[in-house]
């Protein structure tokens, strides 16, 4: 914990979303493995993903994946053009803006079939 400004929060979110996505990846490898046991076993498994209560968790996965991607891109940009570190706060707001621009339409498309 340091300073408590955007640098700290972008870093904390990056770690939390990274662990979250990896945790989902473990689950996803196991659920997909059921396809080797035939259609019934696989359909039984993926029925979970089609449950309405599961949809918000898929949207949360999108949020984690999208944030981690865009903030990771910000880190790469600052690495390759070190002069940009002066604008890292601004770049973080750009990440948030881009996140919002992509996340809200996508989550709308995902949630729409439920209503």
């Amino acid at each position, binding site marked *: 914990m340091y300073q408590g400004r955007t640098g700290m929060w972008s870093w904390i979110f990056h*770690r939390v979303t*990274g662990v979250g996505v*990896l945790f989902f990846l473990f689950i996803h490898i196991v659920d997909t*493995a059921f396809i*080797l046991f*035939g259609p019934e076993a696989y359909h039984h498994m993926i029925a979970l993903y089609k449950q309405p209560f599961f949809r918000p968790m898929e949207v949360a*996965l999108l949020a984690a994946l*999208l944030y981690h991607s865009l903030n990771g*891109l910000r880190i*790469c940009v600052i690495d390759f053009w070190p002069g940009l570190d002066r604008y890292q706060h601004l770049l973080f707001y750009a990440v948030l803006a881009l996140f919002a621009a992509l996340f809200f339409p996508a989550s709308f498309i995902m949630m729409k079939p439920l209503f």
Partner: protein
Amino acid sequence: MRLSGIALLVLALGHFAIMHLVHPIEELSYDFVAGRYRFFGWRFYDMSLLLLAMLHGLNGVRILIDDYVRSERWHHRLLWVLRIVGVFFMVLGTIVILVFQPVHGHGP
């Protein structure tokens, strides 16, 4: 981390967009996977995603262990747990991607 990250930005977001936006998740089925896996390209895509995501994620957890686990002994133990868990999931995922063949009467 940087290189795998940039590749994953395309592969992982692409995978998510295909499975949730282009095709709503309701369409996912055994036959859907069987249809895609007739083409080696999709297996290659999924294989790249699997291995890069695992290496990137495991590397991330290694950094967390380095940062937060002060005890030498536990640091050592957890790194071994991480390697074993990592190999397990990478091997399992690889087997599924390479071995899967639809049972008779399924797939297009």
